[in-house]
Each structure stands twice: as structure tokens, then as C-alpha cells.
């Protein structure tokens, strides 16, 4: 089994935190994992991506090659489209619906979403609304992990355990909101 996930978003949205949760769950399941991250300048509101590769055997490359990502998980529609050439022909694009507009030439959001919905396998998640319902706007990333849980080669229980291990130390309320966000995200994509 080889599985490649490309995470996308805008610097500051918390792209790496999604990768960290999934990576953690994968390793707990005994899978090999390599996670390549972008630090530095791009984190200042620029386009940010991270690659996570999972396998039941040793992994060589830290990077996903073109046309070979099984999943693009994006916190922002335009950013999800940006890396489409990495997506395999059987891969899935899952993106948050809300536009992050910090550039003057941001395209018409309806056109972007329409383009995404026209892909063979794409899911658009109203993650802001779901996060709010889960009781914490900060849980958008967790909503997206929940939405991805159907296609990830991981048990939802492992993902919940990884969330618990990550958010436990931030207090019970934060943990509860994140678990709720995960389940709501999962339900929304189901």
C-alpha cells in the first residue's frame, strides 16, 4: 500500500497541523510515513503545501511526484486547485469551501467551486459552518481531517486517537470540540 496526500492552504491556516494528525494516526497503525513541510517565508500568508506519504513498506522520496497524489486536502479552494497536476487520475480533491482572499486578483469563487465540483472525485466542505457548530471556529482543520477520513487508508478510531493525543493537553473543552468537529466533518463528506 502506498498513499500520498498533498495538503494545501494559505500560510497561517494550519496546513501542517492536519498533516501532523494524519501522520500520527498512520504511525500508530504501524505504517511508514514521510512528511515534507514548508517552513519560512511562505508561512507569511503565501501558498503553502505539505506532502505526506504513507506506506506499509519503506518510503524513499519525501516528495510526491506529479500525477501520483491519492488525495489533495485543502483548506482553501484556489489552493486546492493549484496542485491539481499532482493528483492521480483516480485521486480525490477535498477542499474547504471558504475563499481566503488576501490577494487583489482572487478569481470568482463560484467559478472556482464549479471547476472543483466538475472533477471526477471532489468534495467541497462547508468547514467554517461545521466548525462553528462543533463549538470552536479553530477546529476547521479537524473538520477537514474528518471529511478525509472516508478515503484515507486509516481507521477512524486511529484518527480520533491521534486527535485525542494532540488536543488532550489543551483541556477537555478543546478536545471535545475537536472530536465533535472530526465526526461532523466525517458525516458531511459521507
Amino acid at each position, binding site marked *: 500500500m502506498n498513499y500520498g496526500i498533498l495538503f494545501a492552504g494559505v500560510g*497561517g491556516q494550519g496546513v501542517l497541523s492536519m*498533516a501532523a494528525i494524519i501522520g500520527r494516526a498512520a504511525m500508530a497503525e504501524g505504517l511508514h510515513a514521510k512528511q515534507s*513541510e514548508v*517552513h519560512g517565508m*511562505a508561512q507569511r500568508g503565501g501558498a503553502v503545501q505539505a506532502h505526506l506519504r504513507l506506506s506499509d513498506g519503506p518510503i524513499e522520496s519525501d516528495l510526491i511526484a506529479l500525477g501520483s497524489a491519492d488525495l489533495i486536502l485543502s483548506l482553501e479552494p484556489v489552493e486546492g486547485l493549484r496542485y491539481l497536476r499532482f493528483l492521480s487520475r483516480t485521486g480525490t480533491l477535498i477542499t474547504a469551501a471558504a475563499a481566503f482572499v488576501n490577494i487583489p486578483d482572487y478569481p470568482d469563487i463560484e467559478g472556482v467551486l464549479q471547476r472543483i465540483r466538475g472533477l471526477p472525485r471532489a468534495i467541497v466542505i462547508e468547514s467554517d459552518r461545521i466548525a462553528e457548530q462543533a463549538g470552536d471556529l479553530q477546529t476547521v482543520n479537524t473538520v477537514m481531517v474528518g471529511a478525509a477520513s472516508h478515503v484515507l487508508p486509516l481507521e477512524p478510531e486511529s484518527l480520533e486517537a491521534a486527535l485525542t493525543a494532540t488536543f488532550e493537553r489543551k483541556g477537555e473543552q478543546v478536545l471535545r470540540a475537536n472530536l465533535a468537529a472530526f465526526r461532523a466533518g466525517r458525516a458531511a463528506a459521507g
Partner: protein
Amino acid sequence: MTQRILLGDESVALGAIHAGISAAYAYPGTPSTEIMEYLLRHQATHRRPHAAWCANEKTAYEEALGACFAGRRALVAMKHVGLNVAADAFVNSALVAVHGGLVVAVADDPGMHSSQNEQDSRFYGDFARVLTLEPATQQEAYDMTREAFDLSEAFRVPVLLRLVTRLAHSRTTVATGAPRAENPIHKAPQRSTWILLPGNARRQWSELVARQPDLLAWSESCRWNHLALHSARRDLGVITSGIARNYYRELLPELGAAPSHLHVGAYPLPVERVRMLAAQVERVLVLEDGSPFIERQLRGLLPGRLSVAGRMSGEIPPTGELTPDLVRAALGLDSRPGLAVEGVALPNRPPQLCQGCPHAHAYKALKQALEGLEASMVTADIGCYTLGALPPFSAIESCVCMGASIGMAKGAAEAGFHPVVAVIGDSTFLHSGLTALMDAVAANANMTLLILDNQTVGMTGAQDPIVPSARLDAIVRGLGVDPDHCHVVDAHPRRVSQNAAILRREIEHRGLSVVIARRECKEVTRRKARAAGGSERAETGAGTEATIS
């Protein structure tokens, strides 16, 4: 044996700790920053080894050299361009008889994700005539770092460990071993091997040159340089270095019969192994992330029998980061494009100053101050504020190297240009601006220096600057800047006009003036709020290191 999940950078840090270092020094710079951040976290919980940020890479290197002089092992870490700053110390330290192991970890940034050039540090290792190690994986980063200290002591040279962005910032499982104890304090026994007076230096230089065959002999037989000859295929041989091996190996199943392959992880280049490979094949493809360092040596000057392919022959683009897809194309495999975006023009999203960044307010004031002037020149420097080059600010006109803003402004002023403003951040000023300001004071250069004091090293993740901001104006005045023309202003959005007036006055003043625009970086404010109990999500996975067992 313990398994941990580590970034390449963190693997180096832990390898050094387990090699028994007593001290580590660094200046932050992407993609090397996480080496020191790991060491600082470790120090906070274990007290040893001593770990500290320094004013710049040169002071960091010299401090590590001092530990080595005292017989202790020391690590110094920096980004590739930092080695330019530390080059004086580095190149000369190759001539002394290294005592305690000394390793310099340098993270190159092919593709310039966060840098102003993509120089390849392997040239520096060759130039200084020392050993260079180049890990391909996080595991090798750990293992090589440990071994580098032994090698440094055995061969009495500093050892350069070359990382690249993709390894530095990629995380996976690393098996770690038992830590080694620190060296006892034991001063270098022979003074003359450390006093590089010409008489000694000539001897030390000859000795270093005479030791080269030993370094080469080690490189020829070490486990990091691995040759696999396959007589079934004569048309192609492949040389990989560092992480290029990962991309190559992944494509092996698609290549049919495996070509003979030499992997290089240690330098000087194992010449004999290269010759053995070359003797087997008609054509060699060289895959390296960075400059054509190996390829150039293979080509030499005169045409040979062997055909060599790589960046110089165009199989791989001459610049930019090596990627799995470039390796695929160089091996002649069909490309595998993914889906294409049609019907929507995707805009670029370059990085930009954070919302409410104090630099934005300072730039507004500067633009206002320059309004109506016939001509002006604004030299600038390296940090978040370099993003002031982009719209909506478009406020600066140069960014070359750490500290260059001040020297360039002085040079331009002395060339007759007026008005000239130099813009520099507090940390960059402390790194490399002080000496240039001294020059400007000595000449009473007709220029204005604007120090953007955000009280942190913002771009690399908000490290504390080496001198607290409250002492910055005392330092500036201490260098001899006229107190009447040295101001500290608050870079508050409501003070833009007031600050612009002060700047305008000082720009019109004939002579040197300094304005320090002070206001805390938003990132620091956020961090403080987080520490005080806010629930803002963590932006990076840093600090989430997990021990599996």
C-alpha cells in the same frame, strides 16, 4: 534502540547530542532553524548541552571553535548563505589541529524557497579541504552527524554536514542509539597548531594538504559511498548524491534492468569508485540536488570517452530544486501528468506581511516621508520586511545580503545620490549592520537609517534577538550617532503622519541620521497570548515529537 519521529534538522540536533556535544551555536535561517530549536527544547528539559542563538553565523562558528579548542565537541548550524558570513572562521579552522570534534551543519536551499540564492555548500567543503557528509535520509542525518564528530577528531578537521531543504523539513521515523558522554575539558595540547602566524600557517597548510590522501582513502572505503555494479547494463550508469538517491530508487522498478549505481554521501569525491563505474558504462547520468558539483568534476576540461549527463548537459535544468519528476525525465521515463486546471486562471499567492504587521505602518510613514521628493533611494535588507518590496508597499529597492542596506546606502550617498534611506530589521542590524553603521558614522554619511525594531527574528519564527530591543538605541548612540539625529518612534498605525514628519526632517538633514521604528511583531504578540492560555492552533508540527518505543 529508540524510534523517534524527527525532521531532518532535528535528526542532526539529536545526532549531535548523542555524539556528546557540549555546546551548540547557531543563527536562525530557513531551512536550518529547527536544528537549534530542537537543541534549545532539549536544553530546557535536560540542561545539557549548552545551546544558544548567536549574533551571526561567524560568531556562532567561532564560539564552537572555542569549545573545540577546549577539547569539547561542538555543533554549529546555519543556512547556506550563513556560511558566507562564517567563511573566514570556517576556512581557517581547517588549518588548526581540531581538538574536540567540530561539525558545521549547513542547510542549503535549492529552489530558493526562502533564500536569495541557491549556492551549494559542497563547494565550501572542497575549498576548505575538509570532509563533507551529505545525508539522503533523516536516519542518515542522525547517523552521519554522530560519525562526523568521530571523523573530525580522527582527521583533525572540521566536518561539514550538508543538508537540503527537503530533508531538513521532512519528518519520519529515526532509530537512535545510546548517547555518548561529553569529552572532558582538555585544552588543545600544542599552541603552535592554533596560532596561524605565517610560519605556523605554512606548516599547518602543508599538513592539511598532506592529509588529503587520508581523507580520500576514508571516502573511498566508507559506507556512505556505495557502488553497485551490474554487468547486465552497459548503456547507462547513475551517480546520485544526497536525496537524489531517494528519487532515483523510487523509479528503479520502471527502469527494467538496474543500471550500475554509485551513491555519494561523503566527500572528497571517491575518485576510484567513480572510475570503476565509468569503466563499466558508456554514459553516466549525475543526479544531485544543487549545483553540478560532481558532474563538473567528472567532465573536467578535456573531452573524454565517457558521456556525462546532468545539469550541464541539459538533462536536468541548470537551476532550481531537483524533484522526482525531473529525475523521471532525465531517466527517459514518460511523464505522468496529473489533472489539469482548465477554465480558471489561478493567481499567485506570494507571502506577505501579516495583518497588522508593524513594518506595514513603518513603510506607510516612509512612503509618506518620501512623497514629493524628486528622487529617492531605499536600500533594504533580509527579513519579513523584505516583503515590503511587493505591492501594496513597493517601498524598497534592494535586498542583497545580511546588512548590505547600510553599506550600500553609504556608498550611494558618497557617490552623490540624495536622499538615501537604508531599511534594516533589528536582528539583521545586530547580525551585520553594526560594522557598516560604524563606517557611516566615521564618514558622517549623508543618509538615513531606518531600523525596523519588531523585537524579534520574525521571518524564522520569532526567536529572541541577541540584544533586547530596549538597548538598541543605546548601541546606536554608542557607535557615535549624533543623539540629535537619533530617534525612537512607535510604529503605531495612528502615528504614521507623525513618524513620516520625523523621517522627512531627518532625510533632509545633511549627514547621518537614525530612526528606530519600534513595535512588537504580531507573531510574538500571538505567541504570548497562546502561552497565556489561548487556544490558537499550532502552526507547525514542531514540538510534537513522539517517542514510539
